[in-house]
C-alpha cells in the first residue's frame, strides 16, 4: 500500500544524506522539506517546501519554523516522517508523531563519536532511532542498520 512519506533535512550534509536514502521511499507518495531554496530543484526532489533553518539559540526563528512545519504536516498528514537533521527535522518528528505518523531519525554520518545534539533531542520522538555508526549506536542505545557511505 502506498504510504505518505515526509522527508525532512536542513541544507548541506543532512540533505545530501537524505537524498542518498531516496530509494527506500520508491513507490510511495513523498514530499520533502528543506531549508535552502534551490536545493530541491538541484536534486529533482519534488514536491518540496522550504522552511527557515533554526537552532536552539534562536527562539523566534525556531517558533516560526515550528509553525511552518506544523502547517506542512497538517496539509499532508504523512504516515511516515524521516529526518537526518537538524533541529527542523526534530520538530517534524515531534509534531508528526502527535498526529499519528511513524517517525524515523537517521543521525548524520558526520557524528562518528557520539549522537548529534539534535539526534539526542529526537530520541523521544523517533519510533526508529538510528546512528550510521555501530559504536555510536551501541553507546547511545540506538539501532545501527547501515550507512550511506
Amino acid at each position: 500500500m502506498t504510504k505518505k512519506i515526509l522527508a525532512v533535512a536542513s541544507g548541506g550534509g543532512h540533505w545530501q544524506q537524505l537524498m542518498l536514502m531516496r530509494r527506500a521511499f520508491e513507490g510511495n507518495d513523498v514530499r520533502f522539506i528543506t531549508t535552502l531554496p534551490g536545493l530541491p530543484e538541484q536534486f529533482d526532489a519534488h514536491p518540496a517546501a522550504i522552511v527557515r533553518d533554526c537552532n536552539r539559540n534562536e527562539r523566534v526563528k525556531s517558533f516560526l519554523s515550528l509553525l511552518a512545519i506544523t502547517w506542512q504536516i497538517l496539509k499532508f498528514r504523512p504516515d511516515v516522517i524521516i529526518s537526518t537533521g537538524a533541529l527542523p527535522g526534530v520538530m517534524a518528528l515531534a509534531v508528526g508523531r502527535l498526529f499519528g505518523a511513524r517517525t524515523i531519525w537517521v543521525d548524520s554520518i558526520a557524528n562518528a563519536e557520539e549522537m548529534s545534539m539534535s539526534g539526542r533531542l529526537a530520541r523521544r520522538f523517533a519510533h526508529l532511532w538510528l546512528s550510521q555508526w555501530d559504536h555510536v549506536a551501541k553507546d547511545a542505545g540506538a539501532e545501527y542498520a547501515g550507512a550511506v557511505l
Partner: protein
Amino acid sequence: MIFVTVGTQLAFPRLMEAFDTLAPGLGEDVVAQVGPDTGNYPNLKAQPNVAPDEFERLFTEARLVVGHAGVGTILSAKRFGTPLVLMPRRHALGEHRNDHQLATAKAVEKLPGVYIAWQADELAGLLVRDDLKPMTNDESPTHSALIGRLKAFIETA
C-alpha cells in the same frame, strides 16, 4: 588539475603546506579551498571558500580531489565520480576537536576510488600514481542494508 578542499569550518595547514611543497613538481594546477587559514601558499591557487556551483565545477573538472576526511567531501566525490585522496585530521595536532576523521577514513578506506594518506609524506606517492580509480555512485553493502531497513519500517508503518 588537482582540487584540494578542507571544508568551511577549520583550517588544515598541514595539508596545505604539504601541497605547497609538492605543487611545483606536479606540472599541473592545484586549486585549494583552504577555509579560515591565514597561511601563505604561493604555489597554490588558494581561496578560503568556494560557492556551490564553483565547487561542483571543480569536482567535475579535477583529475583528483584531495581532502580532509569530511563527510561532505566524500559524498561529493561519490556524486561526481572523482578519485579521492583523504588525509584525516588529527586531534593530537590540534586539527579537530576529536579523532572522528580517523574513524571516517577507516570506514571508507575500502571503497573504490578512495585512497588514504594517513601521514602527509604518503601524499607524494599517491599523486604520481596513474591507476587511481574514480569513486562510483554505486550503493555499498552498508548503504543497501540501511535502505533495506528503512523500506521494511516504511512498509509496516
